[in-house]
């Protein structure tokens, strides 16, 4: 390994040199930071400035360096040195632009800048450049679970991009729910007529594709490993088990229809009351002719009841069925009404809806059905009675009166229920009980395993974590595919209620993410949101106390346990958030460029004035994605805040180890502000549980504070959103004022 040589490059541009004493900063870097090379430049991000650094790397043997200039968020391309360990001291957005102007603030401003130089130097000394662990031999095959429209689409999409695909279908044929459909809603202009489903053509295409290997009558008995090296045990109905090595997984396990029997008030289970799937079957049997009931008589009048057993939580129901809307059912009923009209325009077709939901060009399909004479009635259906002549009691919401009509057939538009395997909360409870010897729990565990889709052998359970209502959805708007199981992507109605068009689009997107996952593994790089990050957690297991916190707290289920209960890190599943590092009570987990030391040494590098100087020191640990940009933007908007704060960006607040807090307090800091994202059910943390964990850990720190005879207020957690630049500036000033009021930390001088 080459020798390490440290350097610091200080930019005096953007007014830094006009306002700060750059000479003094250089001196700090040399004397206190112990940097071998220290240079300043009036325009460091210019070609000339960057060349200065490159030249030192090439000719002076500089390997590790601190760039003291603007925020790490600025000029990222200019200051990209992939082969070196680089820290950034934020003199511009972090000092110059946020400390009040004028000579009255010269002293505190300079102190702040000098501290950031000290911190930048201290940090880089503990950093190494991430080497990555590329694995070109990893598997690039994509496994698709589920052979319906979504699964087949995902399989074809990946195969057509050149990737081998293993497709698993539990039934004897491909096609899934689409096999039961007579036609589908139109996807393209003019959005006027129901279209052939195309399922047979697609099945043929998938079956004949050279890159797609199909396992019918098969389920997953076990999925072990990690992205790039999943080993799937595929169990056939016959009992035979085949093993496939795959790199990533698309879960397209679809949905089942809501059980009609649960809707007796709407005639569920009674004669001539069917759900939409039932109507498709009648339409298929009719094959374009008159649609007949089970008793063989042609249907002369039909009523469609929308939102049957759906949308229950608002003003629309009592919450006893599905709360959500399945999205596709309005268009589906429109389609089905046209089945009748196309065969015989004299059939009376009434669609009873509360809100007709046909977004986008669906409006054209709606119009087309109206044109065919389908009657739409805004109504709340109260009761349906099946029988030879069905009766529908409803309130016509437009005419504001109760009414009832008779019909030969009633179609209930019921919802989609996702097929997403085991609920992990239930799993954890069951496993915990089973481990303590509860026989019933052991029984239940094996039952749960039977309904599991993936049977992952992960420490945290066999399936993807589910969100509300059992969907394997991601919780993000900007990143809908980001599940909590790296390399496993949900697609289609298992993820969210949806129609066929959306499901196919969704499946294509999921296929891309799966491809990306295998490419990431090959390069040894992290997946979203730290895309391309080559660092990964390393643990000094000799110091590990087998406390299991890292394995439990990892939001991505990346860490398993070996027989001795030591953590086993699966790098390919890891998203590099550092939650494990924050969790570890003995601090044995670290990343090459981010560790308890890289942060701890920064905290220690700060020059804490004694109690007589009336200059409190406040440590801010700020989430790098939201709070830190908010602070940056406060600078960009030239808002001011206290010069007493020293900010350290963290990958996620969940990576903050409590040792940092105790270090800071021991050092004589007067307060600590921890700024993370919104936590709770509607969390906004991109690592899911990070801010939640930080809050939880900090709630436990009170005892420690008491032992040190410190006030609880000296450590505060805040939810800071990225738009909060003005709010965060005020937050800091208020906290600084509060600390001055409280008086200096009694720990000063003991550190």
């Amino acid at each position, binding site marked *: 390994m080459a020798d390490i040589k440290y350097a610091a490059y200080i930019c005096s541009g953007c007014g830094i040199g006009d306002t700060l004493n750059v000479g003094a900063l250089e001196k700090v870097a040399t004397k206190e930071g112990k940097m071998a090379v220290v240079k300043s430049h009036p325009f460091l991000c210019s070609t000339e400035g960057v060349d200065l650094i490159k030249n030192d790397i090439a000719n002076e043997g500089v390997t590790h360096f601190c760039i003291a200039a603007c925020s790490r968020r600025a000029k990222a391309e200019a200051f990209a040195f992939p082969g070196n360990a680089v820290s950034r001291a934020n003199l511009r957005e972090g000092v110059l632009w946020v400390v009040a102007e004028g000579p009255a603030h010269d002293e505190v401003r300079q102190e702040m800048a000098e501290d950031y130089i000290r911190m930048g130097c201290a940090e880089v000394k503990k950093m190494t450049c991430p080497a990555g662990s590329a694995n070109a031999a990893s598997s690039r095959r994509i496994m698709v679970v589920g052979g319906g429209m979504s699964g087949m689409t995902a399989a074809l999409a990946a195969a057509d991009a*050149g990737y081998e695909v293993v497709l698993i279908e539990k039934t004897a044929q491909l096609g899934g729910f689409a096999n039961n459909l007579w036609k589908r809603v139109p996807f393209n202009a003019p959005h006027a007529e129901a279209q052939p489903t195309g399922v047979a053509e697609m099945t043929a295409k998938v079956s004949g594709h050279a890159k797609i290997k199909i396992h019918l009558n098969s389920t997953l008995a076990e999925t072990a490993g990690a992205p790039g090296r999943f080993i799937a045990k595929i169990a056939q109905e016959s009992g035979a088990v085949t093993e496939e090595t795959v790199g990533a997984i698309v879960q397209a396990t679809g949905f089942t229809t809501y059980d009609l029997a649960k809707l007796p008030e709407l005639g569920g289970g009674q004669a001539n009351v069917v759900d939409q799937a039932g109507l498709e079957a009648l339409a298929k049997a009719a094959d374009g002719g008159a649609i007949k009931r089970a008793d063989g008589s042609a249907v002369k009048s039909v009523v469609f009841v929308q939102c049957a057993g759906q949308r229950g939580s*608002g003003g629309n129901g009592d919450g006893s069925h599905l*709360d959500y*809307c*399945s999205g596709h059912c309005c268009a589906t009923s429109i389609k089905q009404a046209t089945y009748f009209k196309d065969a015989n325009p004299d059939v009376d077709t009434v669609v009873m809806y509360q809100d007709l939901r046909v977004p986008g060009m669906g*409006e054209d399909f709606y119009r087309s059905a109206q044109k065919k004479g389908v009657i739409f009635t805004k109504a709340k259906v109260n009761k349906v009675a099946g029988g030879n002549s069905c009766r529908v009691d409803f309130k016509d919401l437009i005419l504001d009166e109760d009414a009832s009509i008779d019909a030969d057939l009633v179609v209930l538009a019921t919802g989609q229920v996702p097929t997403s395997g085991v609920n992990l909360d239930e799993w954890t409870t069951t496993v915990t009980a089973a481990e303590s010897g509860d026989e019933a729990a052991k029984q239940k565990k094996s039952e749960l395993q039977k309904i599991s889709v993936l049977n992952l052998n992960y420490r945290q359970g066999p399936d993807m974590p589910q969100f509300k209502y059992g969907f394997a959805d991601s919780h993000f*708007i900007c990143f809908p595919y980001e599940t909590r199981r790296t390399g496993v992507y949900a697609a289609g109605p298992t993820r969210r209620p949806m129609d066929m068009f959306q499901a196919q*689009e969704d499946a294509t997107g999921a296929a891309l993410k799966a491809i990306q996952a295998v490419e990431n593994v090959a390069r040894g790089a992290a997946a979203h949101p730290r895309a391309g990050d080559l660092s990964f957690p390393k643990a000094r297991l000799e110091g590990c106390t087998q406390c299991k916190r890292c394995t439990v707290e990892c939001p991505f289920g990346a860490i398993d346990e070996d027989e001795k209960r030591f953590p086993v890190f699966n790098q390919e599943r890891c998203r590099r958030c550092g939650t494990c590092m924050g969790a570890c009570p003995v601090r044995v987990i670290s990343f090459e460029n981010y560790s308890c030391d890289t942060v701890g040494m920064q905290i220690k590098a700060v020059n804490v004035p004694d109690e007589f100087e009336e200059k409190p020191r406040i440590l801010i640990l700020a989430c790098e994605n939201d709070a830190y940009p908010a602070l940056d933007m406060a600078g*960009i908007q030239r808002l001011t805040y206290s010069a007493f704060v020293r900010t350290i960006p963290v990958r996620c607040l969940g990576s903050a180890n409590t040792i940092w807090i105790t270090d800071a307090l021991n050092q004589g800091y007067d307060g600590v502000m921890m700024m993370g994202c919104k936590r709770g059910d*509607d969390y906004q943390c991109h690592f899911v549980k990070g801010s939640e964990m930080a809050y939880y850990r900090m709630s436990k720190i009170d005892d420690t504070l008491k032992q040190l005879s410190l006030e609880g207020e000296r450590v505060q957690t805040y939810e800071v959103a990225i738009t909060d630049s003005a709010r965060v500036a005020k937050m800091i000033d208020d906290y600084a004022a509060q600390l001055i009021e409280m008086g200096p930390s009694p720990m000063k001088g003991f550190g």
Partner: protein
Amino acid sequence: MTASIATNQTILVVGGGIAGMTAALEAAECGKQVLLVEKTPTLGGRTAQLYRYFPKMCHPTCGMEINLKRIKGNPNVRVMTMTQVVAVGGGRGDYNVTLKVSPRYVNENCTACRKCGEAVSAEIPDAYNYGLGKVKAAYLPHAMAYPQRYVIDASIVGTPEGEKAKAACPVNAVDLGMQEETLEINVGAVVWATGWRPFDANKIQPYGYDRIANVITSVEFERLADPHGPTGGKLLRPSDGKEAKNIAFIQCAGSRDENYLRHCSRICCMASLKQTQYVREAYGDAGKSTVYYIDIRAIDRFEDFYAMVWKDPTVSFVKSKVARIAENEANGNPVLHGVDTEGYHRYATEHDLVVLAVGMEPEVSGVKLPDDIIIDSSNFIEGSKDGGMFGAGAAASPLDVNRAVQSATAASLKAIQVIHKNASTEAA
């Protein structure tokens, strides 16, 4: 001359909003070469102009920060701002694209130090805030603008103001001699992520957007609610700067209307439901929102959000397409006239402020697209006849951000398939 920045192994993504950024990044992170062109000076598109997302009420800039970080760190993506596609020749796998690059008058030297902005006194309408405020004619589009580089507005080039900006720049970044450039490139596939624009509310004559100060659009309301907006996040109405506490939200302003947009814009119901919660955020129980609607289209799991808003006592719903808006000249209040169709109740209701939930119109409406592009009756892009160009996001269909990202990710893979075919043909 064909510029060497792209080859038939390159995917061209047109439009740098959330869909375009997504399409570009997803392909780039699969190892593909991508050229991302954006016609305005910054990435982020209309998403960057939203205050919060439904249903999580989180901030679009949060995801944008991640996407920008991905772009900054990925050499596979090349970004060109102020660039438009003017012509596409060739076919699937081998397109010749003509790009027009408008002058920014600021080069890569810029450090966003703000000196030019301080030197210039001329002001222009603030596009970021939909013209609700003004910015200096030397400006950074917004605090998260990427590239983080100033723009000199063409209106001051050749004037003493322009010279002031140039003189103030400490790093020689202002180049007033920049000219429009035309560039020919070769690419394998094209993703059209050209997005949408809010329907021009002036066209909806009975709603008086052009006449009544306190009738604004939903996109403008986003800017009012945003702390980075013209009012610092206060819901101040235009006529007198007073706090608007009793706010009407009119659905289908332009959408579902054969006189204007024949399609349903999908997002507006949810956007208005979300905006009722801005009113709650501002005033608690003292605010009042009324939603005038035809059908509330809170699709799939969004129903939860609707149910939550539905239970909010400060929000009421009227099933009615408002017929017309008059103005109470004494206090500037808009007065809504119409009929509640649930039982036929006539109303004339006064509100402090009216927010028109304007529809999404494809940004390419009225733009000459390559002949090969297939569009629907509302000008949404369905794809191309030769199968080498794809619509993504709101260019393809009126979509919310989540669906736009889904659509863009799918389009990205379809583009990769074209490139893959090229690569395997060449290898063979």
